[in-house]
């Protein structure tokens, strides 16, 4: 007991010395220069807000799209119903329409006076126009085709005979989906989510049309970069946010690569 107590106090002493040296070092001239270089790298509070808002919007857009994406991908891949190609076209629409058009359509439908927007506001208190939720909706709609397409392709690759085998072992349709289909399409779902997330992070046209460019509320990374390029002396801010954007995209790519690899290893695909 006594021995360990002595060790502790010795450790604390070492730590104190190290901290002291560090603080002294910070005061030295040499380090000040280095820190000012890092100052340039540091984001201003407004820039931070834009980054955080963008991340929140992209995460919310991806997570909310996911259940609908899986359901619609299932319907498109497996279902045989009237209006299937119409649904398919509708889902893919945001991919081919000019983003501004999608944003304007959202404004008409989900705006404060729009049919759906007014209904949701009056009955559930959900308001989209000029709110970050609207940005998330716009990003979700724009990312949706990518999400659905990735999941649909992976569902079509699932061997339906495995699902039959599961049903002969006693699994009803819901269990077959949860225990066989879902694990087998997991790589596709992850790929779709990352595509959707990346699209949401970069979405500009539809967002700015639908919910404008309000700092702290709807000003996402791309809008903030755009704003910086429009004001004199905004170059450094634009560059910083661009670097952040690149870093996030790279991270997403690496994450998707790692997850795909681990999923393949699980399935023993050589």
């Amino acid at each position, binding site marked *: 007991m006594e021995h360990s107590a002595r060790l502790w106090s010795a450790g604390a002493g070492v730590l104190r010395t190290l901290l002291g040296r560090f603080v002294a070092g910070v005061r030295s001239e040499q380090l000040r220069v280095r820190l000012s270089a890092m100052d340039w790298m540091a984001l201003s509070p407004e820039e931070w807000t834009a980054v955080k808002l963008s991340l929140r919007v992209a995460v919310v857009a991806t997570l909310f799209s996911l259940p609908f994406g899986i359901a619609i991908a299932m319907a498109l891949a497996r279902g045989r119903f009237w209006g299937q190609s119409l649904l398919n076209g509708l889902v893919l629409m945001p991919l081919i329409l000019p983003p501004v058009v999608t944003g304007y359509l959202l404004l008409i439908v989900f705006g404060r006076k729009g049919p759906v927007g007014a209904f949701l506001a009056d009955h559930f208190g959900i308001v989209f126009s000029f709110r970050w939720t609207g940005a998330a909706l716009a990003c979700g709609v724009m990312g949706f085709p990518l999400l659905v397409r990735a999941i649909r392709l992976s569902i079509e690759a699932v061997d339906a005979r495995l699902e039959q*085998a599961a049903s002969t*072992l*006693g699994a009803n349709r819901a269990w077959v989906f949860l225990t066989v289909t879902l694990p087998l399409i997991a790589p596709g779902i992850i790929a779709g989510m990352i595509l959707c997330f990346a699209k949401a992070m970069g979405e500009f046209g539809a967002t700015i049309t639908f919910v404008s460019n309000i700092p702290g509320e709807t000003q996402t990374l791309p809008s903030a970069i755009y704003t910086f390029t429009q004001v004199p002396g905004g170059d450094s801010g634009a560059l910083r946010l661009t670097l952040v954007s690149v870093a996030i995209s790279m991270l997403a790519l690496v994450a998707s690569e790692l997850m795909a690899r681990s999923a393949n290893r699980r399935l023993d695909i050589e």
Partner: protein
Amino acid sequence: MTLALDIRHRLGTFLLDARFETGSGLIALFGRSGAGKTSVVNTIAGLIRPHAGTVMLDGTVLVDTARGVFVPPHRRRIGYVFQEGRLFPHLTVRQNLLYGHWFTPPAARGDGFERVLGLLGIEPLLERRPGRLSGGEKQRVAIGRALLSNPRLLLMDEPLAALDEARKAEILPYIERLREQSRVPIVYVSHSIAEVTRLASTIVLLSEGKVAAVGPVSEVMHRLDLFPLTGRAEAGAVVEAVVERHDERFGLTELRSRAGSWRLPRLDAEVGARLRLRVRARDVMLAKSAPTDVSALNVLPGIVADIRVGDGPIVDIRLDCNGEALLARLTRYSVERLGLAPGAPVHALIKSVALDRRSLSGPIAQGPGADAEADEA
């Protein structure tokens, strides 16, 4: 168990119109490729909803289109071993085996896990994934998975078709043990006459979507009129025999059957064991009088029971050897030269070496090793 089926189902231009009723044991659905065997098992399993008809298992109605009854596959408790195994690639062997347990109440889980592992010899594979198993191992796991779902009936759709000869020989003894030791009745689909005679107690012979014959193996296999359907080249008699004694000096085993005694190369079977001998018609010679100086060790007296002359030079003959049927394929020339006609007394000659161990089945004490050896011989 009783399985009664009476269905009509159209698949493109193919019309399935099958009706049969069978008792327990191993029922073989036998017929050429495209005869509708898989459609019949899929209907029993509930993977196909027939356009019209009924399916009953032990008095429970599984399908009755007239009354709009269709029990979905997950509520039928019918195990299914598919031709290609269909193991779940994302689960380990253990998880695959226990998959059915998730949907079975603990009290009804039946066949013990350990017992099934022992029966199929799959214990060492438990932590592996299906991607790392050989074809034979996959099929054994698939059989175990179906057994562990506590089925009332086990369907096996050509479980050996995707395997080479060595792997088939590896699995057949396990299926035989399953038939002997498990109380679950089996419907076994095959187009291999050797597998069917080795395993089945009852045969349902299918041809072009219709049932051509139903009955005990020997009865169906011995009908000359069914030869075009059962496959002429491989046609043969099924003889029930008992191991009489072993001749260590010459490495022979003596069997006793109603037709007489047989001698064939040494078997790994205990004296007194019952087994089934398949004697191919093309391996049987006929003689008018008992030959004396002849190398063939098996000479059995009998009477010509039925002669069936086809279009070609080949004639199929069924003999009655003291109540046991034997089949012989001769040329029409030989038949006329010997003046063979129903009622004529003859002697059947069969070379011992024509009766290899592959033509045997029954509760012989043999592991997979013994069979693999027979394949090399």
